[in-house]
C-alpha cells in the first residue's frame, strides 16, 4: 500500500522536478548561447506538453470514466427503482425523496459529459495554441469559456440546493457555528472555485445528514470518501501546477510559466465539474441504499 502510494506520488511530482532541472540547464544554455533562446523556449514548451500535460489528461479521462459509470449505474437501477416506487407508495411518501431530483442529477451528469467537458477541453487547447504561437492569442476566448462554464456549474449547484430545501424533510443538522470558520477558510484559500466548493459541500452535507436516520454513519463516510476522492486528487494536481508556475516565474520564460498557470486554472474548473458529478453519485447511491433498506424493513 505504502509502495503504491509512493509510486503514484512520484509519478505525479516527478515530471515537475524534471521541469525544474530542465529550466536550470536551459538558463545555463541561454547564458552561453543567447542566439539559441528561441530554440530553448520551443523545447521547453514541447517538454511541458509531452510530460506535464499527462497528469491533466489523466484527470480528464478519469472524469469521463466516472460520468459513464454513474450514467450506467442510473440506467441499471432505474427500472428497479420505478418498480419499487409503484409497489410502495406509502414508504416513498415518508422519505420525501423526489424522483425528479434523481432525474435532474443524472441530467447534470449527461450534460457534463456532452457539453461541459468538451468546452473545457477547447479552452485548454486555446491556451496551448496561444502559448505555442504568441502572435495569435486566444487568451480572452479561453477565459470566456472558463468563466461561463463556472457560471453554468454554480447555477446547477444552486438548483440542487433549492431542490433539497424544497424537500423540507432534510435539514442541516450539523452544528453551524462549528462549520462556518472552516467554510470561510476554504472559500478564501482555494482560488477560483473556493466559494462554489463550500456551497456544494454544504448541499451534500445537508442532504446526507437527512439520510443518517436510515443508514449507518460509516456507510455514509465511505460513500463520501469514494465520491470525493477524484475531486480532491484533481484539486491537488491543480495546486501542483500553480505552485510550479509560482516557483519558476522569476527565472523562466514568460510562456512556460503562463502555460502552467493556465493548465492549473483549467484543472480548477474541472474540479468544479467533478463536484457536480460527485453530488450526482452521492445522491444516487444514498437514494438506492436508503430505498433498499426501507423495502427490507417493510417485509
Amino acid at each position: 500500500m505504502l509502495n503504491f502510494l509512493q509510486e503514484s506520488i512520484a509519478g505525479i511530482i516527478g515530471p515537475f522536478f524534471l521541469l525544474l532541472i530542465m529550466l536550470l540547464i536551459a538558463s545555463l544554455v541561454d547564458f552561453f548561447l543567447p542566439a539559441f533562446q528561441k530554440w530553448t523556449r520551443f523545447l521547453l514548451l514541447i517538454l511541458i506538453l509531452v510530460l506535464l500535460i499527462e497528469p491533466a489528461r489523466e484527470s480528464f479521462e478519469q472524469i469521463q470514466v466516472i460520468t459513464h459509470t454513474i450514467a450506467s449505474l442510473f440506467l441499471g437501477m432505474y427500472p428497479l427503482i420505478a418498480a419499487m416506487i409503484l409497489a410502495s407508495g406509502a414508504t416513498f411518501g415518508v422519505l420525501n425523496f423526489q424522483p425528479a431530483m434523481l432525474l435532474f442529477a443524472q441530467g447534470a451528469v449527461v450534460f457534463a459529459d456532452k457539453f461541459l467537458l468538451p468546452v473545457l477541453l477547447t479552452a485548454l487547447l486555446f491556451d496551448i495554441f496561444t502559448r505555442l504561437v504568441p502572435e495569435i492569442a486566444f487568451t480572452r476566448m479561453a477565459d470566456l469559456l472558463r468563466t461561463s462554464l463556472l457560471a453554468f456549474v454554480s447555477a446547477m449547484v444552486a438548483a440542487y440546493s433549492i431542490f433539497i430545501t424544497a424537500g423540507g424533510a432534510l435539514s442541516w443538522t450539523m452544528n453551524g457555528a462549528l462549520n462556518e470558520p472552516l467554510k470561510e477558510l476554504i472559500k478564501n484559500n482555494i482560488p477560483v472555485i473556493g466559494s462554489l466548493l463550500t456551497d456544494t459541500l454544504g448541499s451534500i452535507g445537508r442532504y446526507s445528514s437527512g439520510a443518517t436516520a436510515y443508514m449507518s454513519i460509516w456507510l455514509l463516510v465511505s460513500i463520501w470518501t469514494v465520491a470525493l476522492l477524484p475531486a480532491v486528487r484533481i484539486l491537488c494536481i491543480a495546486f501542483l501546477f500553480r505552485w510550479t508556475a509560482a516557483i519558476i516565474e522569476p527565472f523562466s520564460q514568460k510562456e512556460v510559466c503562463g502555460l502552467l498557470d493556465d493548465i492549473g486554472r483549467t484543472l480548477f474548473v474541472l474540479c468544479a465539474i467533478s463536484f457536480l458529478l460527485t453530488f450526482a453519485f452521492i445522491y444516487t447511491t444514498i437514494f438506492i441504499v436508503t430505498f433498499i433498506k426501507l423495502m427490507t424493513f417493510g417485509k
Partner: protein
Amino acid sequence: MAILFQLFVVYLLLLLLSFAAPALHPILYTALFLLVTVYVLFTVLVPFGSTLLALTDKLPSPYATLLVVSAGLYYVADVLSLQMKDEGYGAYGQLFQTSMKVVIMTLWLPYITQLIETIHAFIPW
C-alpha cells in the same frame, strides 16, 4: 586558463601571417581556424557539456541531452559559418547553418510527433 593564452597566441600568429603572406592568408586562416576549433572543442566544450549532462544523469528522460547536444551543434555551425562569412562566402555560410538547423530539427522530430499526438488525444470527438 592556459587555453586563453594559447588562443591569444594563435590570434597574434594570424595577425603576423596577414602581414607576412597576404596572398596565402585565407587558406592559412581557414586551416589554423579549423585546427584550433577542433582543439577547443575537445578540450573545453565537450568536457563542459558532459559535466553538464552528468548533473542530470539520474533523470529518466532524454530532454537534457537533447537540449545540450543541439545547443552544441548550433554553436559549432554558427562559428563555422561566421568563419565562412569572414572569407567572403556569406551565402555558403548561410547554407551551412540552414542544413545544421535541419539536422537539429531531425533530432527533435520524434518529440514533435509526440507533442502532436498529445494534443490530438485531447480532442474527444
